[in-house]
Protein backbone atom coordinates (compact mmCIF):
# COMPACT_ATOMS: atom_id res chain seq x y z
CA UNK A 1 0.00 0.00 0.00
CA UNK A 2 1.42 3.37 -0.96
CA UNK A 3 1.69 5.81 1.88
CA UNK A 4 0.66 9.40 1.43
CA UNK A 5 2.66 12.11 3.18
CA UNK A 6 0.00 13.89 5.18
CA UNK A 7 -0.09 17.37 6.67
CA UNK A 8 -2.42 17.83 9.65
CA UNK A 9 -3.52 21.38 10.50
CA UNK A 10 -3.94 22.18 14.18
CA UNK A 11 -5.00 25.69 15.08
CA UNK A 12 -4.41 26.85 18.61
CA UNK A 13 -2.46 24.39 20.75
CA UNK A 14 -2.98 24.67 24.50
CA UNK A 15 0.42 25.11 26.26
CA UNK A 16 -0.38 22.26 28.64
CA UNK A 17 -0.93 19.76 25.86
CA UNK A 18 -3.06 18.86 22.89
CA UNK A 19 -6.77 18.38 23.33
CA UNK A 20 -8.20 14.92 22.70
CA UNK A 21 -9.90 15.93 19.42
CA UNK A 22 -6.54 17.22 18.15
CA UNK A 23 -4.86 13.91 18.98
CA UNK A 24 -7.73 12.09 17.25
CA UNK A 25 -7.13 14.26 14.17
CA UNK A 26 -3.45 13.24 14.12
CA UNK A 27 -4.56 9.62 14.31
CA UNK A 28 -6.85 10.20 11.33
CA UNK A 29 -3.91 11.64 9.39
CA UNK A 30 -1.75 8.63 10.24
CA UNK A 31 -4.25 6.36 8.50
CA UNK A 32 -3.05 7.90 5.23
CA UNK A 33 0.70 7.92 5.87
CA UNK A 34 3.50 9.64 7.75
CA UNK A 35 2.27 12.90 9.27
CA UNK A 36 3.67 16.35 9.77
CA UNK A 37 1.73 19.02 11.62
CA UNK A 38 1.13 22.68 10.79
CA UNK A 39 0.35 24.51 14.02
CA UNK A 40 -0.91 28.07 13.88
CA UNK A 41 0.80 29.19 17.11
CA UNK A 42 4.38 28.41 18.18
CA UNK A 43 4.20 25.20 20.25
CA UNK A 44 5.86 24.73 23.66
CA UNK A 45 8.60 22.09 24.03
CA UNK A 46 6.16 19.86 25.88
CA UNK A 47 3.73 20.08 23.00
CA UNK A 48 6.44 19.28 20.44
CA UNK A 49 7.34 16.21 22.48
CA UNK A 50 3.69 15.17 22.62
CA UNK A 51 3.38 15.63 18.85
CA UNK A 52 6.40 13.32 18.47
CA UNK A 53 4.75 10.71 20.67
CA UNK A 54 1.77 10.83 18.33
CA UNK A 55 3.83 10.17 15.25
CA UNK A 56 4.49 13.69 13.98
CA UNK A 57 7.80 13.90 12.11
CA UNK A 58 7.96 17.61 11.34
CA UNK A 59 6.20 20.53 13.01
CA UNK A 60 5.66 23.69 10.95
CA UNK A 61 4.98 26.98 12.70
CA UNK A 62 4.48 30.49 11.33
CA UNK A 63 6.96 33.29 12.03
CA UNK A 64 5.78 35.69 14.73
CA UNK A 65 2.84 37.00 12.67
CA UNK A 66 -0.40 36.71 14.60
CA UNK A 67 -2.94 34.81 12.54
CA UNK A 68 -5.55 34.61 15.27
CA UNK A 69 -7.09 38.05 14.77
CA UNK A 70 -8.14 37.41 11.18
CA UNK A 71 -10.79 35.16 9.72
CA UNK A 72 -9.35 32.11 7.90
CA UNK A 73 -7.78 33.86 4.86
CA UNK A 74 -4.22 34.24 6.27
CA UNK A 75 -4.37 30.75 7.79
CA UNK A 76 -5.14 29.35 4.32
CA UNK A 77 -2.37 31.43 2.73
CA UNK A 78 0.11 30.22 5.34
CA UNK A 79 -1.00 26.60 5.08
CA UNK A 80 -0.55 26.76 1.29
CA UNK A 81 3.00 28.02 1.93
CA UNK A 82 3.60 25.10 4.29
CA UNK A 83 2.26 22.71 1.66
CA UNK A 84 4.77 24.13 -0.82
CA UNK A 85 7.55 23.14 1.60
CA UNK A 86 6.14 19.87 2.93
CA UNK A 87 4.74 18.64 -0.42
CA UNK A 88 2.00 16.53 1.16
CA UNK A 89 -0.32 14.29 -0.82
CA UNK A 90 -3.08 14.92 1.70
CA UNK A 91 -4.03 17.70 4.10
CA UNK A 92 -6.28 16.98 7.07
CA UNK A 93 -8.20 19.63 9.03
CA UNK A 94 -10.94 19.49 11.62
CA UNK A 95 -14.55 19.87 10.51
CA UNK A 96 -15.24 23.18 12.27
CA UNK A 97 -16.49 26.19 10.27
CA UNK A 98 -12.88 27.42 10.16
CA UNK A 99 -11.53 23.99 9.19
CA UNK A 100 -13.93 23.73 6.26
CA UNK A 101 -13.29 27.28 5.09
CA UNK A 102 -9.51 26.98 5.22
CA UNK A 103 -9.92 23.68 3.35
CA UNK A 104 -12.07 25.35 0.70
CA UNK A 105 -9.52 28.10 0.16
CA UNK A 106 -6.69 25.56 -0.01
CA UNK A 107 -8.69 23.72 -2.63
CA UNK A 108 -8.59 26.85 -4.78
CA UNK A 109 -4.93 27.63 -4.05
CA UNK A 110 -3.69 24.08 -4.67
CA UNK A 111 -6.28 22.97 -7.25
CA UNK A 112 -7.13 20.25 -4.79
CA UNK A 113 -10.34 18.30 -4.31
CA UNK A 114 -11.90 18.93 -0.90
CA UNK A 115 -14.00 16.38 0.98
CA UNK A 116 -15.78 17.69 4.07
CA UNK A 117 -17.63 15.98 6.92
CA UNK A 118 -15.47 12.86 6.75
CA UNK A 119 -16.43 10.16 9.27
CA UNK A 120 -13.83 7.56 8.23
CA UNK A 121 -10.68 7.48 6.13
CA UNK A 122 -8.97 4.57 4.39
CA UNK A 123 -5.24 4.27 3.67
CA UNK A 124 -5.84 4.67 -0.09
CA UNK A 125 -7.47 8.06 0.45
CA UNK A 126 -11.06 6.90 0.29
CA UNK A 127 -13.20 9.07 2.56
CA UNK A 128 -16.58 8.12 3.95
CA UNK A 129 -19.31 10.60 4.79
CA UNK A 130 -23.05 10.78 5.07
CA UNK A 131 -25.03 13.10 2.84
CA UNK A 132 -28.59 14.28 2.29
CA UNK A 133 -29.33 14.79 5.95
CA UNK A 134 -27.86 11.42 6.87
CA UNK A 135 -29.99 9.43 4.41
CA UNK A 136 -27.08 8.24 2.22
CA UNK A 137 -23.58 7.03 2.94
CA UNK A 138 -21.03 7.79 0.27
CA UNK A 139 -17.39 7.04 -0.26
CA UNK A 140 -15.42 9.58 -2.26
CA UNK A 141 -11.90 10.26 -3.42
CA UNK A 142 -10.07 13.31 -4.60
CA UNK A 143 -8.79 12.98 -8.16
CA UNK A 144 -6.25 15.81 -7.78
CA UNK A 145 -2.59 15.29 -6.78
CA UNK A 146 -3.34 16.77 -3.36
CA UNK A 147 -6.45 15.79 -1.40
CA UNK A 148 -7.94 17.94 1.37
CA UNK A 149 -10.13 16.37 4.06
CA UNK A 150 -12.07 17.91 6.93
CA UNK A 151 -12.61 15.19 9.47
CA UNK A 152 -15.34 14.94 12.09
CA UNK A 153 -14.69 13.99 15.72
CA UNK A 154 -14.62 10.23 16.23
CA UNK A 155 -13.19 9.26 12.82
CA UNK A 156 -10.06 7.90 14.48
CA UNK A 157 -9.00 7.23 18.04
CA UNK A 158 -5.83 8.88 19.33
CA UNK A 159 -2.97 6.44 19.87
CA UNK A 160 0.73 6.84 20.59
CA UNK A 161 2.99 5.98 17.66
CA UNK A 162 4.87 2.65 17.97
CA UNK A 163 8.10 4.61 18.38
CA UNK A 164 8.08 8.18 19.66
CA UNK A 165 10.11 10.53 17.50
CA UNK A 166 11.51 13.96 18.21
CA UNK A 167 10.07 16.15 15.49
CA UNK A 168 12.03 18.91 13.86
CA UNK A 169 10.40 22.31 14.15
CA UNK A 170 10.48 24.34 10.96
CA UNK A 171 9.36 27.95 10.66
CA UNK A 172 7.47 28.88 7.52
CA UNK A 173 6.87 32.57 6.95
CA UNK A 174 3.37 33.88 6.46
CA UNK A 175 3.36 34.96 2.80
CA UNK A 176 3.34 38.64 1.93
CA UNK A 177 -0.13 39.91 1.27
CA UNK A 178 -1.79 37.19 3.35
CA UNK A 179 -3.57 39.84 5.41
CA UNK A 180 -4.45 42.15 2.53
CA UNK A 181 -8.02 40.98 2.00
CA UNK A 182 -8.67 39.37 5.34
CA UNK A 183 -11.62 40.18 7.57
CA UNK A 184 -10.53 41.36 11.02
CA UNK A 185 -11.78 39.86 14.27
CA UNK A 186 -12.40 42.97 16.35
CA UNK A 187 -14.17 41.45 19.31
CA UNK A 188 -14.33 38.08 20.96
CA UNK A 189 -16.42 36.85 23.86
CA UNK A 190 -16.23 33.38 25.35
CA UNK A 191 -19.44 31.48 25.20
CA UNK A 192 -20.79 30.22 28.50
CA UNK A 193 -19.84 26.63 29.24
CA UNK A 194 -22.37 24.19 30.61
CA UNK A 195 -20.05 21.93 32.60
CA UNK A 196 -21.63 18.99 30.74
CA UNK A 197 -19.88 16.99 28.00
CA UNK A 198 -19.36 18.74 24.67
CA UNK A 199 -22.45 18.12 22.52
CA UNK A 200 -20.61 16.88 19.42
CA UNK A 201 -18.32 14.60 21.44
CA UNK A 202 -20.76 13.18 23.99
CA UNK A 203 -21.60 9.48 24.10
CA UNK A 204 -25.14 10.29 25.24
CA UNK A 205 -27.32 13.27 24.33
CA UNK A 206 -30.67 14.13 25.91
CA UNK A 207 -32.55 16.64 23.79
CA UNK A 208 -35.72 18.63 24.37
CA UNK A 209 -38.05 20.47 22.02
CA UNK A 210 -41.20 22.55 21.99
CA UNK A 211 -42.83 19.89 24.17
CA UNK A 212 -40.77 21.09 27.15
CA UNK A 213 -42.74 24.33 27.00
CA UNK A 214 -39.62 26.13 28.17
CA UNK A 215 -38.86 23.93 31.15
CA UNK A 216 -35.60 22.08 30.46
CA UNK A 217 -35.38 20.83 34.08
CA UNK A 218 -36.41 17.22 33.30
CA UNK A 219 -34.04 17.14 30.29
CA UNK A 220 -31.07 18.41 32.33
CA UNK A 221 -31.74 16.12 35.28
CA UNK A 222 -31.88 13.03 33.06
CA UNK A 223 -28.76 14.22 31.21
CA UNK A 224 -26.88 14.59 34.49
CA UNK A 225 -27.97 11.17 35.72
CA UNK A 226 -26.56 9.71 32.48
CA UNK A 227 -23.47 11.93 32.25
CA UNK A 228 -24.93 13.21 28.98
CA UNK A 229 -24.88 16.42 26.97
CA UNK A 230 -28.07 18.45 26.53
CA UNK A 231 -29.42 19.17 23.06
CA UNK A 232 -32.46 20.97 21.66
CA UNK A 233 -34.64 21.39 18.59
CA UNK A 234 -34.77 24.69 16.73
CA UNK A 235 -38.24 25.36 18.11
CA UNK A 236 -36.68 25.38 21.59
CA UNK A 237 -33.70 27.54 20.66
CA UNK A 238 -35.85 29.95 18.59
CA UNK A 239 -38.12 30.40 21.60
CA UNK A 240 -35.04 31.46 23.56
CA UNK A 241 -35.43 28.63 26.09
CA UNK A 242 -31.88 27.48 25.51
CA UNK A 243 -28.92 28.86 23.58
CA UNK A 244 -28.50 28.15 19.87
CA UNK A 245 -25.24 26.38 20.84
CA UNK A 246 -27.35 23.41 21.87
CA UNK A 247 -29.38 23.13 18.67
CA UNK A 248 -29.15 19.76 16.95
CA UNK A 249 -29.94 19.54 13.25
CA UNK A 250 -29.33 20.91 9.80
CA UNK A 251 -28.43 24.38 11.02
CA UNK A 252 -27.17 23.31 14.41
CA UNK A 253 -24.81 20.56 15.47
CA UNK A 254 -24.63 17.10 13.96
CA UNK A 255 -24.25 14.42 16.59
CA UNK A 256 -23.64 10.67 16.36
CA UNK A 257 -23.75 9.51 19.96
CA UNK A 258 -24.25 5.98 21.28
CA UNK A 259 -27.62 7.10 22.60
CA UNK A 260 -29.89 10.03 21.70
CA UNK A 261 -32.92 10.61 23.87
CA UNK A 262 -35.42 12.90 22.15
CA UNK A 263 -38.17 14.38 24.33
CA UNK A 264 -40.98 16.64 23.14
CA UNK A 265 -39.47 16.84 19.65
CA UNK A 266 -41.60 15.94 16.62
CA UNK A 267 -38.70 14.75 14.43
CA UNK A 268 -38.76 17.13 11.44
CA UNK A 269 -36.33 16.39 8.59
CA UNK A 270 -34.06 19.26 9.71
CA UNK A 271 -33.88 17.80 13.23
CA UNK A 272 -33.28 14.27 11.90
CA UNK A 273 -30.40 15.63 9.80
CA UNK A 274 -28.47 16.21 13.00
CA UNK A 275 -29.18 13.01 14.92
CA UNK A 276 -30.28 10.10 12.79
CA UNK A 277 -26.80 8.59 12.70
CA UNK A 278 -26.99 8.03 16.47
CA UNK A 279 -26.50 4.38 17.36
CA UNK A 280 -29.66 4.15 19.46
CA UNK A 281 -32.57 6.58 19.49
CA UNK A 282 -35.11 6.78 22.29
CA UNK A 283 -38.13 9.05 21.86
CA UNK A 284 -40.63 10.36 24.37
CA UNK A 285 -43.55 12.18 22.79
CA UNK A 286 -47.23 12.56 23.70
CA UNK A 287 -48.38 12.25 20.08
CA UNK A 288 -48.33 8.64 18.77
CA UNK A 289 -48.36 10.00 15.19
CA UNK A 290 -45.16 11.94 15.71
CA UNK A 291 -42.60 11.13 12.94
CA UNK A 292 -39.84 10.72 15.52
CA UNK A 293 -41.31 7.29 16.34
CA UNK A 294 -40.46 6.11 12.80
CA UNK A 295 -36.76 6.26 13.67
CA UNK A 296 -36.86 5.39 17.38
CA UNK A 297 -35.44 2.10 18.64
CA UNK A 298 -37.51 2.59 21.76
CA UNK A 299 -40.42 4.97 21.96
CA UNK A 300 -42.71 6.06 24.74
CA UNK A 301 -46.02 7.66 23.94
CA UNK A 302 -46.40 9.77 27.03
CA UNK A 303 -45.83 13.02 28.88
CA UNK A 304 -42.15 13.88 29.15
CA UNK A 305 -42.83 15.59 32.50
CA UNK A 306 -43.85 12.21 33.91
CA UNK A 307 -41.62 9.81 31.98
CA UNK A 308 -38.27 11.62 32.25
CA UNK A 309 -38.30 12.27 36.03
CA UNK A 310 -39.33 8.68 36.63
CA UNK A 311 -36.44 7.44 34.46
CA UNK A 312 -34.02 9.76 36.28
CA UNK A 313 -35.17 8.43 39.66
CA UNK A 314 -34.91 4.84 38.45
CA UNK A 315 -31.33 5.36 37.23
CA UNK A 316 -30.36 6.89 40.58
CA UNK A 317 -32.09 4.07 42.48
CA UNK A 318 -30.26 1.39 40.50
CA UNK A 319 -26.93 3.14 41.04
CA UNK A 320 -27.44 3.47 44.79
Amino acid sequence: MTMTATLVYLDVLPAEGLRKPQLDLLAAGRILGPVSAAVATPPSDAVVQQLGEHGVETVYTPDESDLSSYLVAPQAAWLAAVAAVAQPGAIVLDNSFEGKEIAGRLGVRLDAGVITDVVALEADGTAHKSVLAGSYEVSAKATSPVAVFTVKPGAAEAAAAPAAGSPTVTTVEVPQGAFAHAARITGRTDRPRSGRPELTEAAIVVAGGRGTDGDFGPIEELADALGAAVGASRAATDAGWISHDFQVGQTGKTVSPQLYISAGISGAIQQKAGMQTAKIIVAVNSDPESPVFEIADFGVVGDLFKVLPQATEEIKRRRA
Partner: protein
Amino acid sequence: MGDTLKIVVLVKHVPDAQFDRHIGPDRTLERSESILSELDEYALEAALQLSEARGGEKAGNQVIALTMGTADAANALKKALQIGASSGVHVTDEALAGSDAWATSLVLAAALRAIGDVDLIVAGMASTDGETSLVPAQLAERLGLPQLTFASSLEVEGRTAVIRRDGGTTSDTVEADLPAVVSVTDQINEPRYPNFKGILAAKKKKIATFSLADLGLDAGQVGSAGALTRVEQAEPRPARTAGTIITDEGDAGVKLVDFLAAQKLV
Protein backbone atom coordinates in the same frame (compact mmCIF):
# COMPACT_ATOMS: atom_id res chain seq x y z
CA MET B 1 -21.64 55.09 -5.52
CA GLY B 2 -22.56 57.04 -2.41
CA ASP B 3 -24.60 55.07 0.04
CA THR B 4 -26.37 52.73 -2.35
CA LEU B 5 -25.50 49.07 -2.57
CA LYS B 6 -25.29 46.60 -5.41
CA ILE B 7 -25.84 43.26 -3.76
CA VAL B 8 -25.71 39.82 -5.38
CA VAL B 9 -27.47 36.99 -3.57
CA LEU B 10 -26.35 33.46 -4.45
CA VAL B 11 -29.30 31.13 -4.73
CA LYS B 12 -29.51 27.43 -5.49
CA HIS B 13 -32.29 25.26 -6.83
CA VAL B 14 -32.27 22.11 -4.72
CA PRO B 15 -34.42 19.01 -4.29
CA ASP B 16 -37.06 19.62 -1.63
CA ALA B 17 -35.95 17.92 1.59
CA GLN B 18 -39.59 17.30 2.55
CA PHE B 19 -39.62 14.49 0.00
CA ASP B 20 -37.28 11.50 -0.23
CA ARG B 21 -34.10 12.49 -2.02
CA HIS B 22 -32.18 9.98 -4.10
CA ILE B 23 -28.73 9.52 -5.55
CA GLY B 24 -29.00 7.98 -9.02
CA PRO B 25 -26.96 5.21 -10.67
CA ASP B 26 -24.52 7.87 -11.98
CA ARG B 27 -23.87 8.72 -8.31
CA THR B 28 -25.23 12.25 -8.62
CA LEU B 29 -28.29 13.66 -6.91
CA GLU B 30 -31.58 13.19 -8.75
CA ARG B 31 -32.91 16.70 -9.22
CA SER B 32 -36.64 16.28 -8.84
CA GLU B 33 -39.25 18.41 -7.04
CA SER B 34 -36.80 21.21 -6.52
CA ILE B 35 -37.19 24.51 -4.70
CA LEU B 36 -35.18 27.58 -3.77
CA SER B 37 -32.83 26.33 -1.03
CA GLU B 38 -34.43 27.34 2.27
CA LEU B 39 -31.12 28.58 3.64
CA ASP B 40 -30.81 31.05 0.75
CA GLU B 41 -34.04 32.76 1.83
CA TYR B 42 -32.14 34.15 4.83
CA ALA B 43 -29.48 35.55 2.49
CA LEU B 44 -32.11 37.19 0.29
CA GLU B 45 -33.88 38.65 3.33
CA ALA B 46 -30.61 40.09 4.67
CA ALA B 47 -29.91 41.69 1.28
CA LEU B 48 -33.42 43.12 0.97
CA GLN B 49 -33.20 44.62 4.46
CA LEU B 50 -29.89 46.33 3.61
CA SER B 51 -31.36 47.66 0.36
CA GLU B 52 -34.60 48.86 1.97
CA ALA B 53 -32.72 50.63 4.75
CA ARG B 54 -31.09 52.70 1.95
CA GLY B 55 -34.30 53.48 0.12
CA GLY B 56 -34.56 50.28 -1.92
CA GLU B 57 -34.53 50.01 -5.69
CA LYS B 58 -35.94 53.54 -6.19
CA ALA B 59 -32.88 54.99 -4.52
CA GLY B 60 -30.59 52.99 -6.79
CA ASN B 61 -29.94 49.91 -4.70
CA GLN B 62 -29.92 46.55 -6.44
CA VAL B 63 -30.47 43.03 -5.18
CA ILE B 64 -29.50 40.62 -7.95
CA ALA B 65 -30.19 36.90 -7.53
CA LEU B 66 -27.52 34.73 -9.15
CA THR B 67 -27.77 31.00 -9.77
CA MET B 68 -25.91 28.37 -11.72
CA GLY B 69 -27.79 25.32 -12.88
CA THR B 70 -30.05 23.61 -15.38
CA ALA B 71 -32.90 25.38 -17.22
CA ASP B 72 -35.12 24.44 -14.27
CA ALA B 73 -32.95 26.43 -11.88
CA ALA B 74 -34.59 29.57 -13.28
CA ASN B 75 -37.44 28.67 -10.92
CA ALA B 76 -35.21 29.50 -7.96
CA LEU B 77 -34.53 32.90 -9.54
CA LYS B 78 -38.25 33.46 -10.17
CA LYS B 79 -38.99 32.73 -6.53
CA ALA B 80 -36.26 35.17 -5.49
CA LEU B 81 -37.78 37.83 -7.79
CA GLN B 82 -41.22 37.22 -6.27
CA ILE B 83 -39.80 37.65 -2.79
CA GLY B 84 -38.23 40.95 -3.83
CA ALA B 85 -34.95 40.66 -5.74
CA SER B 86 -34.67 43.31 -8.47
CA SER B 87 -33.26 41.07 -11.23
CA GLY B 88 -31.78 37.64 -11.85
CA VAL B 89 -28.70 36.16 -13.48
CA HIS B 90 -28.72 32.53 -14.60
CA VAL B 91 -25.56 30.70 -15.62
CA THR B 92 -26.63 27.62 -17.49
CA ASP B 93 -24.79 25.15 -19.66
CA GLU B 94 -25.05 21.40 -20.15
CA ALA B 95 -21.39 21.03 -19.25
CA LEU B 96 -22.11 22.23 -15.70
CA ALA B 97 -23.80 18.99 -14.60
CA GLY B 98 -21.83 17.28 -11.84
CA SER B 99 -19.86 20.36 -10.80
CA ASP B 100 -18.27 20.22 -7.35
CA ALA B 101 -17.60 23.21 -5.06
CA TRP B 102 -14.33 23.99 -6.84
CA ALA B 103 -16.06 24.33 -10.23
CA THR B 104 -19.11 26.07 -8.77
CA SER B 105 -16.95 28.76 -7.21
CA LEU B 106 -15.01 29.12 -10.47
CA VAL B 107 -18.19 29.74 -12.45
CA LEU B 108 -19.82 32.01 -9.87
CA ALA B 109 -16.63 34.07 -9.59
CA ALA B 110 -16.64 34.55 -13.37
CA ALA B 111 -20.32 35.53 -13.29
CA LEU B 112 -19.69 38.04 -10.49
CA ARG B 113 -16.90 39.61 -12.53
CA ALA B 114 -19.27 39.82 -15.49
CA ILE B 115 -21.95 41.49 -13.36
CA GLY B 116 -19.29 43.93 -12.15
CA ASP B 117 -19.07 46.60 -9.42
CA VAL B 118 -20.67 44.39 -6.80
CA ASP B 119 -20.51 45.76 -3.24
CA LEU B 120 -21.71 42.72 -1.37
CA ILE B 121 -22.14 39.04 -2.21
CA VAL B 122 -24.52 37.26 0.16
CA ALA B 123 -24.97 33.49 0.40
CA GLY B 124 -26.73 31.05 2.72
CA MET B 125 -24.65 29.15 5.28
CA ALA B 126 -24.78 25.97 3.16
CA SER B 127 -26.80 24.49 0.34
CA THR B 128 -29.39 22.08 1.66
CA ASP B 129 -28.23 19.40 -0.80
CA GLY B 130 -24.42 19.53 -0.93
CA GLU B 131 -24.14 20.90 2.63
CA THR B 132 -20.40 21.58 2.40
CA SER B 133 -20.34 25.39 3.08
CA LEU B 134 -17.25 25.60 0.84
CA VAL B 135 -18.46 27.95 -1.88
CA PRO B 136 -18.46 31.32 -0.03
CA ALA B 137 -14.87 30.82 1.21
CA GLN B 138 -13.75 29.66 -2.23
CA LEU B 139 -15.40 32.65 -3.89
CA ALA B 140 -13.63 35.03 -1.50
CA GLU B 141 -10.35 33.32 -2.32
CA ARG B 142 -10.92 33.51 -6.07
CA LEU B 143 -12.09 37.13 -6.05
CA GLY B 144 -9.50 38.31 -3.52
CA LEU B 145 -12.28 39.65 -1.28
CA PRO B 146 -12.66 39.51 2.48
CA GLN B 147 -15.02 36.85 3.75
CA LEU B 148 -17.55 37.46 6.50
CA THR B 149 -19.15 34.07 6.88
CA PHE B 150 -21.67 32.33 9.14
CA ALA B 151 -23.09 35.69 10.14
CA SER B 152 -25.85 35.70 12.72
CA SER B 153 -26.05 39.48 12.37
CA LEU B 154 -24.92 41.82 9.60
CA GLU B 155 -24.56 45.59 9.55
CA VAL B 156 -23.16 47.82 6.84
CA GLU B 157 -21.99 51.32 7.83
CA GLY B 158 -20.55 53.34 4.98
CA ARG B 159 -18.05 51.02 3.32
CA THR B 160 -17.58 48.71 6.31
CA ALA B 161 -19.49 45.51 6.99
CA VAL B 162 -19.62 44.00 10.49
CA ILE B 163 -20.96 40.59 11.42
CA ARG B 164 -21.38 38.47 14.49
CA ARG B 165 -20.08 34.94 14.06
CA ASP B 166 -20.93 32.37 16.72
CA GLY B 167 -18.35 29.62 16.86
CA GLY B 168 -17.97 26.59 19.06
CA THR B 169 -16.37 28.33 22.02
CA THR B 170 -16.47 32.03 21.22
CA SER B 171 -18.74 34.60 19.66
CA ASP B 172 -16.74 36.94 17.41
CA THR B 173 -17.28 40.35 15.90
CA VAL B 174 -15.70 40.37 12.45
CA GLU B 175 -15.39 43.31 10.11
CA ALA B 176 -14.12 44.12 6.64
CA ASP B 177 -14.31 46.79 3.99
CA LEU B 178 -16.61 46.40 1.01
CA PRO B 179 -16.67 44.69 -1.39
CA ALA B 180 -16.97 41.49 0.64
CA VAL B 181 -18.44 37.99 0.59
CA VAL B 182 -20.95 37.30 3.36
CA SER B 183 -22.75 34.11 4.32
CA VAL B 184 -25.62 34.17 6.81
CA THR B 185 -27.09 31.58 9.17
CA ASP B 186 -30.76 30.97 9.87
CA GLN B 187 -30.32 32.94 13.11
CA ILE B 188 -30.04 36.26 11.28
CA ASN B 189 -33.64 37.07 10.39
CA GLU B 190 -37.12 35.79 9.63
CA PRO B 191 -37.43 35.51 5.83
CA ARG B 192 -40.55 37.05 4.27
CA TYR B 193 -42.93 35.19 1.97
CA PRO B 194 -43.75 36.42 -1.52
CA ASN B 195 -47.01 38.38 -1.49
CA PHE B 196 -49.47 38.90 -4.34
CA LYS B 197 -47.92 42.22 -5.31
CA GLY B 198 -44.47 40.66 -5.37
CA ILE B 199 -45.66 37.78 -7.54
CA LEU B 200 -47.15 40.21 -10.08
CA ALA B 201 -44.13 42.50 -10.01
CA ALA B 202 -41.79 39.56 -10.63
CA LYS B 203 -43.32 38.99 -14.07
CA LYS B 204 -41.78 42.24 -15.27
CA LYS B 205 -38.34 41.62 -13.81
CA LYS B 206 -35.49 40.49 -16.02
CA ILE B 207 -33.34 37.39 -15.89
CA ALA B 208 -30.05 37.55 -17.83
CA THR B 209 -28.65 34.24 -19.02
CA PHE B 210 -24.97 33.41 -19.44
CA SER B 211 -23.38 30.33 -20.98
CA LEU B 212 -19.88 29.15 -20.09
CA ALA B 213 -18.58 30.67 -23.32
CA ASP B 214 -20.13 34.03 -22.37
CA LEU B 215 -18.04 33.89 -19.20
CA GLY B 216 -14.88 32.85 -21.02
CA LEU B 217 -14.82 29.43 -19.34
CA ASP B 218 -13.98 26.10 -20.85
CA ALA B 219 -16.32 23.09 -20.51
CA GLY B 220 -13.41 20.91 -19.37
CA GLN B 221 -12.91 23.03 -16.24
CA VAL B 222 -16.40 22.36 -14.87
CA GLY B 223 -18.99 19.65 -14.44
CA SER B 224 -18.03 16.03 -13.98
CA ALA B 225 -15.07 16.58 -16.35
CA GLY B 226 -13.50 19.25 -14.15
CA ALA B 227 -14.49 17.85 -10.75
CA LEU B 228 -11.60 17.22 -8.37
CA THR B 229 -13.57 14.79 -6.27
CA ARG B 230 -15.31 11.60 -7.32
CA VAL B 231 -18.03 9.70 -5.52
CA GLU B 232 -17.08 6.03 -5.59
CA GLN B 233 -20.12 4.56 -3.95
CA ALA B 234 -23.42 5.84 -2.64
CA GLU B 235 -25.71 3.66 -0.57
CA PRO B 236 -28.93 4.65 1.09
CA ARG B 237 -28.43 4.35 4.83
CA PRO B 238 -30.53 1.36 5.85
CA ALA B 239 -33.80 2.98 6.84
CA ARG B 240 -34.06 3.12 10.60
CA THR B 241 -36.84 0.79 11.53
CA ALA B 242 -39.17 1.71 14.29
CA GLY B 243 -38.43 -0.37 17.36
CA THR B 244 -40.60 -0.99 20.35
CA ILE B 245 -43.18 1.70 20.97
CA ILE B 246 -45.02 1.61 24.27
CA THR B 247 -47.73 3.82 25.72
CA ASP B 248 -47.10 5.12 29.21
CA GLU B 249 -49.24 3.41 31.82
CA GLY B 250 -47.47 4.99 34.73
CA ASP B 251 -44.28 2.91 34.52
CA ALA B 252 -42.75 3.97 31.16
CA GLY B 253 -39.83 5.72 32.88
CA VAL B 254 -38.84 2.43 34.51
CA LYS B 255 -39.33 0.55 31.22
CA LEU B 256 -37.16 3.12 29.49
CA VAL B 257 -34.38 2.40 31.96
CA ASP B 258 -34.93 -1.37 31.46
CA PHE B 259 -34.33 -0.79 27.75
CA LEU B 260 -31.17 1.25 28.41
CA ALA B 261 -29.90 -1.42 30.78
CA ALA B 262 -30.54 -4.17 28.20
CA GLN B 263 -28.47 -2.11 25.73
CA LYS B 264 -25.76 -1.71 28.42
CA LEU B 265 -26.21 2.06 28.33
CA VAL B 266 -26.70 2.39 32.10
